[in-house]
Each structure stands twice: as C-alpha cells, then as structure tokens.
C-alpha cells in the first residue's frame, strides 16, 4: 500500500469552482464536530489558563476569606523568580540534549539495518524492538523501578555496585526508561519512510560499487530527513513534558523531588493549591515547548529545501 508516493494530483478546476458554492454544507458537516471539540478542549483551556494566570488570591488578614483579584503579571514575576522551576527546566533540557540524540541515533541505525540486506529475520526484530512501545510510561517506569532496585533486581551483581536510584544517576535511569519505550516507535516511523523510497534510486549507486553504508549515508538518510524531523519534534515535546516516569520514581527513591520536572512542579503547585501560579507555569512551559518545536521545524525545513 505505497499510496503515499503516488503523484499528488492537483485539484482540477471544476472541483474548485463547485467547492466554493455548492459544497459549503458538506464542508460544514465534515469540519464542525472536530472544530467544536478542538475549540472546547484546546483553545478555550488555553485562554482560561492565561486568564487564571493573571489572577491572584488576596486574603483579609491571615485567616480571612480568600478572594481572587486581577493581579496583572504578578504570577509571571513569581515564575521568573522561581529557582525550582528553572532548575527543573535546565534538568529536562540536559536530559533532552543527551537522550534525544541517542534515542534517535539508535532508532535510525536500527531502521537502516532493518532496511539493508545485511539482516535476516526482519519481521521478528521489528516486533521485538517495537514491543516496548506497547508498555505505557507509567508501567515501564514501575517495571524498571523493580529492575533497578538493589534487592529485587535480576541483576543484583550490577545494582549492588551501582545505585541507579541515587541522586547522581536517577535522571539517566529515567532517560533509559524513556529511551527503552520510544526507540522502537521512532524506528518504525523512520523505517516506514525508508520503505517508501523507490528502490531504483539505489541501482545506479550499486552499479558504481557503493557499499550499503555509503548508500545509507548518501541516499537513504537525506531522503528520510522529514521523518527524522518529525520524530525530533515529538521527542522534544515529550522531554519537556516528562511527568509519568519521574512521578513513579518518586515512590522508589527520594532523589526525585516534587519539583524534579516542570510538569511535576505544576502538579504539586496546583495541588497545594495555588492554581494561579500553576496556570502561569503551564503557560510558560507550553510557550517554551511550542517555541522550541517550531524553531526545530523551521531550521530543519530550511536546511532540507
């Protein structure tokens, strides 16, 4: 089913002309359900969060009744002075700078190997590598939490020597869990893109005596760049939004605090409850995520053109 490489047919004139006048009803029918839900659960929440982040709670005296009043950028001033928030941002940034390239590098390598004639038993390997993606982040973290624990782990020889749950290593133990879950997913996306490349493209290179490694480097990787961009953006989003894995690790180790990642901080701030400050954290985090993803998209697109 390689329909994806079929020639995109440009819309014939008559479709366009009819589309504007006669098909308005159909377009409205097709778009309305999604548009309503998208407005209710994407757009309105964003505005509510922005609104809430501009409020502040005032009390009359220490035990007085709290009232919400408009506070302007008071909450944002707090966000920018909050060391724990910026420490958590720096932590996930460091995490992402190391984890994302390793994960995508291995995913690309495995996709290329699966696509090369070097490997037998492709079906088995494809399923084996993809299987962890069926494990939700929370469950994966619970599982690896057991594997890391000194007394329960099957690898006691290793875990009695190295403290995977200590303050020095726990971030990278979490990185390993995320990598374990998502390599296969990213590999499948890149691999599907590789399968869609017409094999005639390799023939000239083969006649010239190019090795598989050379074909991979000079033909395959440039052609799957869009897939790599897509996986990078999803990975960046995922890194900044880390929550489930560190949340689970909190019950295995005290090294993970309630301000360990931005989302953990948002959750603990909201349950204090200081909803207005939590809303401001959310808005700043969403903007950072959006800006970073958008930048990667624009930079890499320019390069690819």
């Amino acid at each position, binding site marked *: 089913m390689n329909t994806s490489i079929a020639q995109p047919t440009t819309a014939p004139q008559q479709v366009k002309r009819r589309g504007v006048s006669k098909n308005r009803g159909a377009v409205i029918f097709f778009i309305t359900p999604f548009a309503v839900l998208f407005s209710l659960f994407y757009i309105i929440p964003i505005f509510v969060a922005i609104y809430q982040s501009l409020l502040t709670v005032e009390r009359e005296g220490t035990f007085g009744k709290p009232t919400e009043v408009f506070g302007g950028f008071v909450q944002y001033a707090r966000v920018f002075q909050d060391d724990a928030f910026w420490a958590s941002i720096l932590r996930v940034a460091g995490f992402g700078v190391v984890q994302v390239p390793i994960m995508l590098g291995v995913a690309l390598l495995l996709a290329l190997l699966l696509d090369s004639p070097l*490997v037998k038993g492709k079906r088995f390997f494809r399923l084996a590598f993809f299987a962890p993606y069926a494990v939700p982040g929370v469950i994966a973290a619970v599982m690896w939490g057991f594997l890391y624990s000194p007394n329960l782990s099957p690898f006691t020889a290793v875990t009695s020597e190295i403290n995977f749950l200590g303050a020095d290593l726990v971030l990278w133990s979490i990185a390993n869990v995320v990598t374990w879950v998502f390599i296969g997913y990213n590999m499948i996306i890149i691999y599907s893109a590789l399968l869609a490349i017409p094999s005639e493209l390799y023939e000239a290179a083969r006649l010239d005596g190019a090795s598989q490694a050379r074909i991979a480097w000079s033909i395959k990787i440039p052609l799957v760049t869009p897939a790599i961009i897509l996986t990078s953006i999803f990975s960046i989003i995922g890194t900044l939004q880390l929550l489930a894995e560190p949340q689970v690790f909190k019950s295995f180790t005290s090294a993970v605090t309630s301000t360990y990642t931005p989302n953990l901080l948002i959750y603990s701030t909201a349950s204090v409850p200081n909803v207005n400050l939590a809303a401001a954290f959310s808005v700043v985090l969403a903007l950072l995520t959006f800006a970073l993803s958008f930048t990667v998209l624009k930079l890499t697109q320019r390069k690819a053109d």
Partner: protein
Amino acid sequence: MSAPTTSAAKSTSVAKRLRGPRESLFSRAGAMLVMAICTFYFLVPIWWLFVAATKDRSDFISSAPLWFADFNLFQNIADLASYRDGLFFQWMLNSVLYAGAGAAIATLFATMTGYALAKYAFRGRETIFNIILGGVLVPATALALPLFLVFSQVGATNTFWSVFLPSLVSPFGVYLARIYASSSVPDELVEAARIDGSGEVRTFFTVSTRLMMPAMVTIFLFQFVTIWNNFFLPLIMLRDEELFPVTLGLYIWNSQVSQIPEIRALVIIGALLSIIPLIIAFLGLQRFWRSGLGTGALK
C-alpha cells in the same frame, strides 16, 4: 548466501555487477550482533515481568529472577480479581472504554476534517489547517491543568466525561488525514461519484473512507495509545477510584507498596495484564498501520 561459488563463476560475476559489492561476512555479523544486543535490551524487561508474574511471593524473592519457579500465574490473576472486588478489572474496562471509544470517535472526526481540508477549496482553509498544526505542537500534557480549570468551572471534574471528551480531539490525526486524502483519494473518483448523483457525505462514507483506511487505522492506533498511556489528565481530574484508567490505578498501588508490601505482587501481575491489549492491537492491525505511518513522515 545463495551465490554459487564453485560451478558458475560467470553468473556470480553477473550477480555481483547487479548487486554491487557483496556485503562482507564481517559487516553481516556486525549487523546481526547489533540486532541481537538490542533484542536482549528490549525484551529482557518484558520477559522478567512475565516470569515475575508467574511466581508466588516467596519465590519472587528467593528464586532466579529470570527463570520460572512454581507456576502460579493463574493463582496470581485470581488474587488480583478478588482484591477489592476486582477493582483492577474495573480499571482495565475503563481504559478500554476511554481508549477504544475515544480513539474510534476521534478517528472519525479527524478523518472527516482532514478530508474536507484536502478535497474542498474554501475560504479560511489554510488558516484552519495552521491552527490545527499549532495544536499538534501543543502537547496534551500541557493542556491537562488548563482542562482541569475549565472542567472545575462547570463542576465536571471527577467524572467519566472529564477524561473522555478531551481525548476525542486529535490534531495530529487531522494532519495525517489531510496528507493521506490528498495523495490517495483521486479527485476524478470524487467527481465520478458526483456525476452518479452521490451526495458529498455519502461519497465520503462509501468511497473515500475505504481508500483512507490505512490512514484511519494509523490515526486510531496513535490515539488509542495516547489515551491508554495518558496519565496526567486522569491524575489531575479523577478522585474516584472507580473511574481510574489502569495506568493511574497501578501508579497509586505502586506508591502504596511501602505501606502494604503484599500489594507488590498485584502491581506486577497487573502491569503484565495491562500491556496485553496494546500488544494485541498492534499485532492485529500491523499490516494497516505500517503503511499508514510513513505518510506523516514523508511530506
């Protein structure tokens, strides 16, 4: 491996010219070694979970962790089913409902919208598409707290709907559907249906959805996994255990292990059972989603 080495030297050289340099034994062995190491890395944790789920509490501590002791899998499942009136299976059912029904409806709505964006020219089309693309870049996790604020305004937190309704929106699904519809639903076919007197909506449901099936399966699976794995939204919305999806339930149990040690066995058997539906979904639908997945990555 199949190239004849002794008799037909001539045909070998032809094959060689066609296939380029034969890959050396060295690079093939290297490739297989990488595959073997990765297989070990990916499968050992799942294997451990499976083995651990078959043990009773004393074997769990005393026996070899990566191999079976007495096979108590069914006893463990029975324990899980009787613990707190089978709360775990209520959670599994909730997850199936949240993810199954949610993903099915989300797929339908996303496909309709993507199709309309691909096949009809109308004013504001690109604006709508760009807003939806922006939605792809705003992660669902970032929306959890804002959604909580919205639902608490209308007093609807801690309800089934507070987790179910937001999961019906899949901006990435719209993006995939649009790309797929523009390349795999020929305008000529839509036009032919029109000439035959078929209405736009009927054409969509009878002709176009068939052509878009690989994309729809992909969108369904994406959304199913997203909802199944969703953790922040239920964590922030739900107080009532009866409404929990399985991920949140197991998380809560796992955080109680230090106070109630015997719950650990239930967490392990529960974790194993909770990944089975996704594995079945992937295996059953793989011939569809593999062809659909490449679509989003190609353009």
